[in-house]
């Protein structure tokens, strides 16, 4: 166990009867990073989160949150959690709801009152402070749930599908809150289906399939490092192709096209100059950034891990 890690799991495994939900999750999330947790439906993402938070007992394996074993309830003192399909006591008002959860965190009354008002403001629900949750829309519930997860000024926040059910304005709000949390040094563990969200907000992502981590990538690295360029040109020779290898990898000819991967789009003008100098007729140079979605399909496969 490493104190510098926000989350560490070693071979966490969960079997429900005959079904293996998580076959062996080994994961390290550093303090202060925004970590995306990606995988197809049924890959064991929610069960993994539930094991880390003590909702589900692992069949075997170990885990630590902020340096404390996941079996220790005090490990959750500085942890916030927004469950998927978030449900609540709908007869409570927004303020009463935050008060209840703050009390469960053991917050002292004066501080709790101030913190609840602050968070209502943060998620834009101050005008609905005294409305019962039953009158809230799905998006408003998601917001109050998010506020609930931040009551204890957590050092680690688990967000399970925080933007499902939110309109674009709400999604941007969640994004801004995640950014703010990161700037305050809070670790965020984000489980989301919306890859574009993950791409914008996360530092690193783990891809999981059949309840195992199949790959962990830096998000910025993955995008900058994997631009595929297609050059439509005539009159190129194998020598010219090998010449291009100084700027990119996996250079190959594909009919009238030259395809290669570059690390930085800044080399594109040089490629173009080189080709022209060698008498190649260039019709188009099209960089295609490898999106997280492409990578997802590449790693997880089109079978969706089934």
């Amino acid at each position, binding site marked *: 166990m490493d104190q510098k890690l926000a989350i560490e799991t070693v071979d966490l495994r969960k079997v429900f009867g005959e079904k293996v939900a998580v076959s062996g999750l080994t994961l390290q999330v550093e303090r202060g990073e925004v970590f995306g947790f990606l995988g197809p439906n049924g890959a064991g993402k929610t069960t993994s989160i539930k094991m880390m938070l003590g*909702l589900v007992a692992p069949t075997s394996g170990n885990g630590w949150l902020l340096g404390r074993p996941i079996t220790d309830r*005090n490990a959750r003192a500085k942890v916030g*959690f927004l*469950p998927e399909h978030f449900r609540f006591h709908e007869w409570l008002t927004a303020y009463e709801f935050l008060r209840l959860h703050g009390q469960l*965190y053991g917050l002292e009354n004066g501080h709790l009152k101030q913190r609840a008002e602050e968070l209502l403001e943060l998620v834009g629900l101050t005008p609905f402070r005294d409305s019962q949750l039953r009158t809230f829309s799905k998006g408003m519930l998601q917001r109050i749930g998010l506020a609930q997860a931040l009551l204890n000024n957590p050092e680690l926040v688990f967000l399970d599908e925080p933007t499902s059910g939110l309109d674009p304005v709400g999604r941007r709000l969640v994004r801004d809150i995640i950014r703010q949390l990161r700037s305050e040094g809070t670790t965020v563990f984000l489980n989301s289906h919306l890859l574009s969200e993950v791409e914008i907000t996360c530092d690193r992502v783990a891809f999981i399939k059949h309840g195992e981590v199949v790959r962990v990538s830096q998000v910025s690295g993955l995008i900058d490092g994997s631009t595929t360029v297609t050059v439509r040109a005539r009159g190129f020779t194998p020598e010219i192709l090998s010449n291009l290898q100084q700027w990119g990898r996996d250079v190959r000819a594909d009919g009238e096209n030259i395809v290669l991967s570059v690390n930085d789009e800044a080399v594109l003008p040089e490629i173009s100059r080189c080709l022209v100098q060698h008498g190649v007729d260039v019709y188009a140079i099209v960089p295609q950034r490898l999106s997280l979605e492409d990578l997802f399909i590449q790693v997880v496969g089109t079978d969706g891990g089934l």
Partner: protein
Amino acid sequence: MRTILIIANLTLREAIRRKIVLAALILGTAFLLLYGLGFHFIRQEMLRADYGRLPSTTMQNQTFNFMLLAGMYVVNFLCIAIAALITADSLAGEIQSGIIQATVTKPIRRSEVVLGKWLGNATLLLFYLSLMGGGVMLVVWLISRLYAPNWAGGLALIYFNSLLIMTLTLACSSSLSTLATGGVVFGAFGLAFLGGWVERIGTFLENRTAIDLGIFSSLLMPSEALWNKAAALMTSPLASLMGITPFTSASEPSALMIVYAVIYLLVTLGIAIRVFTKRDL
């Protein structure tokens, strides 16, 4: 302890806010009104001189005592029903809807959630029994100026009975669905009820097997035995000599039965805590 009180307070507020308390009060008041009216007319009937002579004061008092027991019988039943109704959904419902997830991921013990719900429901039941039991006694007193003998002990046993059912319901609710919980609890109550009658008839016919069956059923679910004990306490000495009635038992359960019921409750509560602590949510 702090967490237990928070959850207990939440449980109480939920019952009030969701108008469960209001519904129970309206039905309870309706029962008390009906009971009072019935009692009033029965008394008037008794006091009419059509019989040629007035019934003796002793006879009157026995009738009033019988009426009081009839009222307490209903109060006992209502308390049991309310105990099962308010508790059946408490854990099962929150587990099924997922409400429980945001609660138990706080730095708290799961046992505190169970104990908090128990305490909240126990408080509600105490409030309800005080009103209903107190209401019946008030009606009887207003009409006949009579008290029930040993009323405090009798009411305490009726309260304990409702706690027993509530605890059993909570234990079922920690692992079964709301509907299955209701089924099991009412099944157990029905078994005890039937067992009580088998024992009564067995006593009347002096059939040992029937009596043993009755005792066996009250070991499985002591609620009927507890009522019998409460009724025996509140029956006037003369009436208890008269023997079998729908509301009292021919054979008063021993004090050992109460000890057994206390252990039964504690073990059931322990099971509720253990099951809820171990289960995946």
